[in-house]
């Protein structure tokens, strides 16, 4: 009804788009990620320039056939460094997401199920969530010292509370349902109820939250490295490359645009995938 007034063509295109949109989002998201991941994995084997090779005579060269994305202030190849940076980002993102999901998810399951545990866990989560995530991550990473391991710990610490909240909320909504009661009636113990009955019902919010956590972790890792408390030079990281390239960006803009653009593409791919998954799982949107 409210669509009256739009040309038929726009309506037709929109309708067609809507039908495939749900899966389209997932496909586009996966396609972007796959492209970047394949580049990052294959590049070191087919591309001859290494991420740490210094060639001062070639410093600040623009993109060319030898240096696809140009070179930085030490003549290092930006494409090679970007590929390496993507690998580090993805590695950190994946581990943080796994840890967050396991740790945050377990805590959410238990605290949603047992009221006594909930009383304690929820207060701690309240306290943690009163900190902006990135601030928590910056502080832990900086105080505990930089390096991949500490960044992973810092980011897990920053992002697990949200996962706990999400899982706890689904547990609370599932707990009073009849199938849980029927499970108990046929003699299922608490352990079985939590892991065989409730966990299954929490899977979709967990997956959706995990994709968002993945995207946030990659953004946060870039921010940490940018601020100088994440991955340290000379090891390449996307955030670190943008940071060190800042001084030269007015004469050699590619030095910041490529690594920055790649962070954006990775996060974009993950966010589109997350949106697609949410649409797929959300019963309200299915109608």
């Amino acid at each position, binding site marked *: 009804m*409210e*669509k009256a007034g*739009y040309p038929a063509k*726009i*309506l037709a*295109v*929109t309708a067609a*788009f*809507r039908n495939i949109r749900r899966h389209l989002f997932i496909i586009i998201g996966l396609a972007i990620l796959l492209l970047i991941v394949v580049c990052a994995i294959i590049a070191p084997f087919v591309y001859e320039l290494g991420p740490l090779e210094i060639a001062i005579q070639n410093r600040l060269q623009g993109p060319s056939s030898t240096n696809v994305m140009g070179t930085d202030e030490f003549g290092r190849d930006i494409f090679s460094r970007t590929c390496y940076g993507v690998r580090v980002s993805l590695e950190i993102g994946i581990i943080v997401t796994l840890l967050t999901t396991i740790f945050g998810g377990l805590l959410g399951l238990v605290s949603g199920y047992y009221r006594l545990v909930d009383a304690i866990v929820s*207060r*701690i989560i*309240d*306290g*943690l969530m*009163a*900190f*902006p*995530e*990135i*601030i*928590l991550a*910056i*502080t*832990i990473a*900086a*105080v*505990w*010292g930089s390096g991949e391991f500490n960044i992973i710990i810092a980011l897990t610490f920053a992002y697990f509370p949200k996962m706990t909240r999400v899982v706890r909320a689904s547990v609370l909504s599932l707990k009073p349902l009849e199938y849980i009661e029927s499970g108990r009636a046929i003699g299922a113990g608490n352990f079985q109820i939590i892991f065989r009955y409730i966990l299954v019902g929490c899977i979709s919010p967990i997956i959706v939250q995990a994709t968002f956590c993945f*995207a946030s972790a990659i*953004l946060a890792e*870039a*921010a940490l490295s*940018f*601020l*100088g*408390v994440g991955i340290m030079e000379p090891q390449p990281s996307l*955030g670190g490359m*943008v*940071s060190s390239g*800042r001084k030269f*960006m*007015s004469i050699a*803009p590619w030095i*910041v*645009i490529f690594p*920055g653009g790649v*962070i*954006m593409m990775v*996060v*974009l791919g993950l*966010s*589109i995938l997350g*949106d697609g998954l949410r649409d797929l799982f959300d019963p309200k949107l299915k109608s």
Partner: protein
Amino acid sequence: MLNYISKRLLALIPVIIISAIIAFFITNIMPGDPVRLMVGDFATEKQVAEMRTKLGLDRPIYERFGGWLGNVAKGDLGESLFLHEPVTKAIFDRLEPTLLLAVVGMFFGIVIGIPLGIIAAMKHRTIFDQLAISTSLIGMTIPSFFIAIILILVFGVNLQWFPVAGYEPYSKAGFGVIRFLVMPGFAIGLMQSALIARMTRSAMLDVLGQDYIRTARAKGLSEFKVILPHAFKNSLNPIVTVIGFSLATLLGGTWIIETVFNIPGVGALAIKAILNRDYPLIQGSLIFTVVIYLLVNLLVDISYSFINPYIKYK
């Protein structure tokens, strides 16, 4: 109402205490020796021991924690190791740029986000809707420091519309202070605008499906009157909520953006404190951020009853 506010303020106390405990232990239970890091590699054992005594780090952790928490309760956040001044003074001296930056950032977030969300909802399931949503998605995925750098490159270096970095306080520059805040404000506001646009869209869509909107249309009201006073006003609650939540990201963003633009605010102070391992100052900045965040969210909760008189607090 007053009763409600005082109850909520009381409820904030345990959260602040837990946050304070977290802030204390993050900085105190860590691998390595902070004193060693502070005095450097060339310090003698005697210097290290002196520093340890001076900072009170030779006392057991529970004793230190008790003393520290007691002081925090009195509003005393200790003395900065690096600036040699009280932490509270250091923070309040740098409050102006941070608050103004947050306001400008929020301004951009709202001014871009709300119209984008309204348009998306009005043109629901058309190309315009998809465009608005895709734009907001892109806004959510660009790291704020990267936008900042692009803005500096384009509007600072090339076009020279705004100063590339730095800050002049209001007392000196008057309203000219805005010039220093446009680019950083936009850089942290863009992500908020994306979140606000998405929430505005979904809240508007909920309301636009209601019967009273159909009634308003049936009465022959102009689309403007249907959208703004009828629909938008009634979808304000979730929008205000997301604005309150996005403040957390915004406050976090000030830590990064102030560093990029060299703005002498609380965020840049905190980052400097972190890099100098100035523990009292780090803890102070953390507690300050938490208190601001919790207070703003309390304000958001209170604002519900002004937006929607049906919501009454007891």
